[in-house]
């Protein structure tokens, strides 16, 4: 991630504001892009990088949801169970996953 601003958010911001905070270079690059083909190429590369980085962040959602589900549905019941109950919890979680 490029130079994230770690200060707290002063006010609610829209997605464009947030992207600009994540990538301050975006503020000036559109102007630079007009200056020649190199600027445009750099902007293209920057957009591609940003798309990749946004994708990387989005992918955390599913991972976090899966881990939360395992903690809620498996680890918590397992932590407070006897061995027979633990097996039951594992079997039940498995049976209710669908295909």
């Amino acid at each position, binding site marked *: 991630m490029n130079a994230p601003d770690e200060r707290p958010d002063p006010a609610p911001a829209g997605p464009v504001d947030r992207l600009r905070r994540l990538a301050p270079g975006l503020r000036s690059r559109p102007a630079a892009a007009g200056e020649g083909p190199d600027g445009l190429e750099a902007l293209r590369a920057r957009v591609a990088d940003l798309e990749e980085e946004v*994708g990387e962040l989005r992918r955390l959602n599913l991972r976090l949801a899966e881990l939360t*589900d395992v903690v809620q549905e498996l680890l918590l019941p397992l932590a407070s169970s006897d061995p027979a109950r633990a097996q039951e919890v594992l079997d039940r979680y*498995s049976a209710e996953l669908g295909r």
Partner: protein
Amino acid sequence: MPRLPEVVDVDRAGLLLGDSDDVLLDVLLDGRRVWSLWTERVAGRTPSPSGPPGAVAVPWPRELAQALDGPVRMTVSCGETVLLDREVVMGPGPDRVRLVDREGRDLVVDNHGRLAVAFGDQGEEATALLLDATARLLADLEEAGVEPFVAYGTLLGAVREGSFVGHDNDVDLAYLSSHEHPVDVILESYRVQRHLIRAGHDTTRYSGAAFRVDLTVSDGTRRTIDVFAGALVEGHLMLMGELWVPYDRSALLPRTSVVLEGRSLPAPADPEALLAATYGPSWRRPDPAFAYAPPAATTRRLDGWFRGTRAARNHWDRRYSDAVHHGPVRKPHDLARLLHRREAEDCEVVDVGCGRGQDAVWLARRGHPVLGLDFSPNGFARLHARSQEEGWGADFASMNLLELRQVMLWGARLARREGPRAVLARHVADATSDRGRRHLWRLAAMALSGGGRLYLEFVLPPADPPLPQHLLLHGLDPDQVRSEVLARGARVVEEAAVDVTHTGQPPAGGIEDETPLRGYRMVMEWRA
């Protein structure tokens, strides 16, 4: 008046069409419509240098191509205008081409390019049974704490015609999540699915925010009811699996109702607004060849948030869909023989990505307790049934390596078991995605936390030509594999380049049917 194409040629590969505007064509076999296509938007369309200027070659959808073997009267029409109508011979097959399923029901190509029994071809009783099943599912969804409504094609049919869309073949339900964050939307979808499983439904997950319920109605027709999560996020409606549009809550809730085949079903507050958002302003005009084409940014967003757990799944399911009808496969792969030579007879084997299960059964019959895992249960269904009947000691279960929670579940289950253990993973690391490969190492590390070896085989990146696509494999660099596994606490105890050889097994479109490929074998060890 749009310019219509000339049908220049027709053969087993597809249609050769002359230059035209983007028009909707119907393809009929012996007078029955089986496929519709838009000439400029049809999948696989390529310019044809051999035809007249502007000509395009349009391939048959794969399942239709397989069925086109024999004589048939082929008609291609655009509305009332017939462009082609003649007897053709589509292959050496002696019988007339009949597009029917095993029970003799008429099939058509659906909007995913697959053959299916369309609603227009099903009887009244089957329709009534499907509606009964839908009503039960709606009640169970309400009980799960969400407010379901009909969406997509089902809503379209109800509003436009008061009936199912004739060329459609599944039921679409959706609900608006009370959550906004994708993590909470996913957790809610998991919870709803669990509730339905407890209520006795057979479900298959598509993504973090959608799954389907599989039904077999009494005449044997298989139907699916899709259950899509929706959410209002930053003034937009996110609706799996295609929508991200500016939207107002009042257009969804409180729900209203629509009438479908004489029955009242829950609908969003403004059904027409959702149809316009889904199908565009021309939603009132029937389009049997409609295919969703969401903006790339929408696909990126929904992919990023929810998808990635079904990579290549449809291909593998299709490859194995007929495996249950194939003859037995008995011959094991070399990697299974190697494992058997290296490990004690009582060593439990976990065959990850077991496919049709021949290695699992071969090892079980030599004394190993064996568990075969694969995300496509069609593959092992036959040998699983035989193993249970004959008491071979090979057990099988479906496990999706792409879902972290399934990997953690199986890792935990295996780690609890007593006794020595080995993991066999033949053409898994090179078949799955990066996510799946990372999960494979995690599963092995958990399953072998008491010590044990992972037997791995994969293909190397080919120099030339590239690997045939139908193998569903991609080459891996042994250095990369070695470093990934070392980072999981294992060490490589044996490795060698190998030929992935032909084993003379029945055709399943698999790697066995190919000439030798360059492969690599690694045995890794985790110490207790």
